């Protein structure tokens, strides 16, 4: 026979405890039902992200109020609660140092905010987009679509690179053109192409210049600033368009090549990788 009125601690009986847990379960069920109702009735009126935030706030409020209403069934003394809580916290801290470490790190992450949901990051060796920041761990979705859960303590102790924290990012290309091509015309055409692209920022202005007179061609450097949100698509698009532009102008992007001079004959040969040796042809 179960003694419902048997005392568990202080004046708290087994029945109080059961009532409390049932109340919490009921509150959680109510919170779930309200969330479903809100989702069904507001999904066509409110943006999805905003609706998710609203639902979370409502759920937390319902659970908080429910627990607050259920607590009086304990008839507890605050002093006792502090003692129980303090002792409990000490035991938990010793028994689960890792969890407490993750919790503390999670708190610092929430305050310091080096990562935000939606940011593209590198945390340690993991690269991807921050999907969720929880109290104990953070969820990253890698660019391959893989779900990675990183304990907050690891994040706190890792090197964090945020690729989108700054509003703009710079990237560059090195484009090599043949020595007989008009580098001035190529630079002017590339500048024109960049000026017409909406996401190649007006300020800071892109820079296009001859960087070096390299072995096989004239190296032109193209430096572009783009909004961090779209920099990758701009980077992939512009390189292809520069290639098409130079092709259209008949400007050759040269292969590596070397001019060989034969000491005995004074004959010159041009050697290209993968091709026949011109010098060998000249030998005949």
């Amino acid at each position, binding site marked *: 026979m179960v003694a419902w009125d048997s005392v568990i601690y202080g004046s708290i009986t087994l029945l109080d405890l059961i009532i409390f847990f049932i109340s919490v379960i009921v509150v959680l069920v109510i919170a779930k039902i309200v969330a479903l109702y809100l989702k069904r009735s507001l999904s066509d009126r*409110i*943006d999805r992200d905003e609706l998710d935030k609203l639902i979370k706030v409502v759920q937390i409020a319902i659970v908080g109020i429910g627990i607050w209403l259920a607590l009086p069934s304990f008839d507890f003394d605050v002093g006792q609660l502090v003692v129980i809580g303090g002792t409990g916290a000490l035991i938990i801290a010793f028994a689960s140092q890792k969890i407490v470490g993750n919790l503390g790190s999670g708190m610092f992450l929430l305050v310091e905010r080096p990562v935000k949901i939606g940011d593209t990051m590198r945390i340690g060796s993991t690269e991807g987009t921050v999907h969720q920041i929880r109290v104990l761990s953070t969820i990253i979705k890698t660019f391959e679509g893989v779900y990675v859960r990183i304990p907050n303590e690891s994040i706190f102790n890792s090197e964090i690179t945020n690729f989108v924290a700054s*509003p703009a990012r710079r990237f560059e290309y090195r484009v090599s053109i043949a020595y007989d091509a008009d580098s001035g015309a190529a630079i002017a055409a590339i500048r024109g192409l960049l000026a017409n692209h*909406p996401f190649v920022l*007006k*300020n800071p202005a892109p820079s296009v210049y001859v960087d070096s007179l390299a072995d096989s061609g004239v190296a032109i450097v193209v430096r572009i600033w783009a909004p961090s949100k779209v920099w990758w698509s701009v980077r992939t698009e512009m390189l292809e368009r520069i290639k098409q532009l130079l092709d259209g102008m008949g400007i050759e992007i040269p292969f590596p090549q070397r001019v060989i001079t034969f000491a005995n004959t004074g004959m010159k040969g041009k050697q290209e990788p993968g091709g026949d040796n011109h010098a060998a042809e000249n030998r005949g």
Partner: protein
Amino acid sequence: MFGEYDFPFKYESENLSLSIAGERGLLTYKRRCLGEEVTKLLGTTQGKVMISPVEPINLPQEVTPYLEIRFTPVACEPDSVQTLYLTFPVEIGVFLEAKGSYDVLDIFTLTSPKYSLYGTPVEGIITRYHESDVFPGIPEIDLVREGVLSLTIRNSSRGWVEVSRVVMDCTGFVLFCGDMVSLTARMEVLSRDLADVRIGDKPLCTGMFPATLLARARMRFIPETLPFMMEYGVGG
């Protein structure tokens, strides 16, 4: 061009063609603009179409809520008030309305969007960039390409300040349309580096009506119009 229309609907100009045609129940929307063609099917029997200017920050995709207008430098004497008329780019929204529900069907522009950075690459903001002439009065412009901004500059600083740009937050601002698209703004210059910019909620002329809010069509909470503090200079 701007306003509310029943189906079928057709608008033709030199660079733009809009049409909604077909039988009620399954209509065809077609848009041809600067060589680009868009076709969509509409499943509606009672709907209406609204053509309205929208905040010029949506194309090619939304990356910022800020609009930056650069203009010929204007030297403002200390403790003075000056009203200038500038142009700003217009994006056009095609909205569907039925039973009190709005949806944005299409957004396009006859201008070439360009973006810029106001401030530093670390702490600045991305802006939709536009260059404008400065006009002493309301200029005559092509209403499908540009709108008119009435900018009142108050120089509250103790020295002369050269103003050559204004940055404003487009969140929640209401454009007014009629014979033109208009916007009013006040800029209080506190120093060469600092200015407070606030968007007005009144039309430039009588008879203009407020444009359809994109936020309403996108099911977002309709935000408050926010003042913007220009912290990286008003000239240069």
